[in-house]
C-alpha cells in the first residue's frame, strides 16, 4: 500500500474517527479525495453528494458542503446543482449499487449529456451496508448473501465494467479512470485530474475506485489485500481510460 501521511485539511475533525468498518476502503478513498480538494484549494466551492449504502456515512466526513441523497440519486442531485450554479464543483460519491444498478440510468445519461460533474464510485464487489448481497461488480464465482454458491454468468451476467462503459458513452468529453485504494497516491492524481477536468469546464469525469470490504468478504487483513490487489484487478483494470494516449498513465507507473 502506497500511503499518504497527513490528514487532509478539509476533513472534519469532529467526525473522526470515522464510522466505516475497520479495513473498509472508503476512508482511504475519502482521504485521497480530501487531499485533492486541499491541493486545488476548492473547499469553499465543492458540493459533495453521497448516496445510500455505506457511502452515506460520509454525510459529515468533510468540512465541505455535503448533501446525502437517496439510493442511486446522487448523480441527478449534483447535476441539478451544477446546472443551476455552474461555478460549483459538484462531486457525486456512491457505491457500485448506486452507480451501476439502481442509479445506472442516471450515470449513463449524465455521461451522455456530458454533465460537468465528477462522479466517484466505490467498487467493493458487494452491497456492504445491506449485509453483503451481490452487486453488479461481484466477480464470477464470488460468494455473497444472494449468490451463496458463487456468481454465475447464467444467473447474473458479467460484472459491470463501469469506466469502460462510461468511456464508450461519453467519448473524448470525459475524463475516466479506475483507481484503487491500494495506491492512494495514484488515486489522488486521478481525482486531481478529474476535478481539474470539471474546473476547466471540459465535461464529465468518472472514477471508479477498487475498494475493500473485509466485513462482508469475511477476510483477514492479508486476504483482504490479496483479493483487492490480485483478484479484483484481473477483471477491473486500473489506470486512466478516458484520456488520449499521450496523457495516459498506467497503473504500474513508478511513483
Amino acid at each position, binding site marked *: 500500500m502506497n500511503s499518504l501521511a497527513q490528514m487532509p485539511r478539509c476533513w*472534519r475533525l469532529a467526525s473522526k474517527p470515522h464510522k466505516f468498518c475497520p479495513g473498509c476502503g472508503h476512508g482511504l478513498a475519502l482521504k485521497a479525495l480530501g487531499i485533492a480538494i486541499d491541493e486545488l484549494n476548492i*473547499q*469553499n*466551492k465543492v*458540493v459533495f453528494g453521497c448516496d*445510500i449504502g455505506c457511502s*452515506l456515512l460520509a*454525510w*459529515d466526513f*468533510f*468540512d*465541505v*458542503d*455535503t*448533501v*446525502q*441523497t*437517496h439510493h442511486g*440519486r446522487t448523480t*441527478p*442531485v*449534483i*447535476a*441539478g*446543482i*451544477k*446546472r*443551476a*450554479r455552474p461555478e*460549483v464543483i459538484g462531486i457525486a460519491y456512491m457505491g457500485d449499487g448506486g452507480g451501476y444498478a439502481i442509479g445506472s*440510468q*442516471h450515470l*449513463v*445519461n449524465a455521461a451522455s449529456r456530458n454533465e460537468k460533474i465528477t462522479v466517484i464510485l466505490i467498487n467493493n464487489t458487494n452491497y456492504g451496508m445491506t449485509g453483503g448481497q451481490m452487486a453488479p461488480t461481484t466477480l464470477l464465482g464470488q460468494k455473497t448473501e444472494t449468490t451463496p454458491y458463487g456468481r454465475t454468468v447464467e444467473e447474473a451476467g458479467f460484472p459491470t465494467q463501469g469506466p469502460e462503459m462510461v468511456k464508450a458513452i461519453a467519448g473524448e468529453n470525459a475524463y475516466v479512470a479506475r483507481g484503487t485504494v491500494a495506491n492512494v497516491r495514484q488515486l489522488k492524481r486521478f481525482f486531481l485530474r478529474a476535478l481539474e477536468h470539471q474546473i476547466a469546464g471540459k465535461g464529465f469525469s468518472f472514477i471508479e475506485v477498487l475498494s475493500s470490504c473485509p466485513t462482508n468478504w469475511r477476510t483477514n487483513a492479508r486476504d483482504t489485500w490479496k483479493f483487492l490487489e490480485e483478484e479484483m484487478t484481473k477483471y477491473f483494470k486500473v489506470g486512466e481510460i478516458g484520456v488520449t494516449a499521450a496523457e495516459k498513465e498506467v497503473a504500474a507507473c513508478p511513483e
Partner: protein
Amino acid sequence: MLRKPIEGEKKVFMTGNEVVAWAALAAGAEIMYGYPITPQNEIMHYWTRLAPRFGRKFLQTEDELSAGFTTLGGVLSGVKAFTATAGPGNTLMQEPMSMAEMMRIPSVVIIQQRGGPSTATVIYSQQEVTMTCFGGNGEGLRVVYSTASHQELFDYTIKAFNTAWKYRFPTFVLGDGYQAKMREPLEIYDPELRGIQLVDPEPYVVRPGIIGIDREAAHLRNTYNTEEELYEVISGHIRDYEAVAGEIEEYETWAIEDAEIVVVSHGVVSRAARMAVEELRASGIAAGYFRPITLRPFPVKHLREIADRVKELLVVESAYGQLQKLVQIAIYGSNASISGHLKPGVGVTAAEIVAKVTELRHGKDKGGIRK
C-alpha cells in the same frame, strides 16, 4: 437580457400549460427540470421557448426520478427551480418529494392529472389526489393547491413558489388534463404590481463565505442512526407544519349559510358543482357549495363547521373517493351524512349533480357512505 416577463397586466387567451410557463417566469423561477409526459408537455415546450429570452434555463432529464432530484439540486443551490409531471411520472416523482419533505427542500411541482391507475388514459382524471397529498414514504407534509381555472393556474403557480420558500415544504399545483389543454381567458400580471412580494430563495449549499471562518459547512442528510433521532426530527417538522397549516389552508364557499345539502368538490369539477348549486337554488332546493383549494393541508376546521350545521354532504369527484376520504376524515364525528358521486377518470356535468341531489332529496338513492 429581459428580466421581467410580464409588464403590468395583460388579458390573454391561453392553454393551461402555457399559463403555467408564464406564471413560473413571473414567479422568478430560474430553471425547469423536466421529463416529457402527457398532458403536461407544453409546460416544457413553452418554457423552453420563453426561458432563454429571460435568462432562464432548462434541463431535459432521463426520467422523472432524475427530474425530481435535479430539481432538488437546483433548489439546494439557492435558485427557484421547478418541474412538472403527470400520472406515472407523478408516481416516480414521489421519491424525490419524500426527500424534499424530510429535508424541507422548497420544491415546486406542477401536476396535470391524467387517468390512472398505471398508465391508463393521457387526458383527464382527479385520481392523483391521494398520491400527490400523501404519496411519499413520509407523513405527507406538503402543500397541494387544487386549481379550477386558468386564472387559478396562474395565481397559484406564483403562490406555490412563495409558499414553498416561505414554509419550506414541497408544494404542488394540482391541475388536470382539461386544465392543461383547454384554452380560456385570464389575466396575467407582474405579481409585484399586485402587491405580491416574491419570497427570495436562499442557498442550502455554497453559501457565501469561507468554511471555518465565517460559515460552517452544510451537512444535509435524511439518514438517522436511531428511531428516536428520526422521531425527534419528524416531530419538529410536524409541529412546524401544524403551526402554519391554518395560514396555508384555502377554500371557497357559496350559498352555504342556510344550506341543507352541500356539494363538496375540487378542481374543474367544482365548476360543474357551482353551476348545479345555482340551478338547485333557483328551483328552491337549499343546496350549498364547498371547494377545498388546498387539499393538503385540508381545510378541516371550515368544512367541519359546515358539516355540524347541515344534514348532508355530497362529494363529487372524477375519482373513486379520493376527495371523499379527505372529507370523511375532516368531519369525523359530526352528524352530517356523506354521499358520493364518484366517476373515476371521467368528467362530471352540472346536470348529473342536479339529478343526484334531487334523488338524494327524494330518498331514492341509498348508496354512498352514511354514518
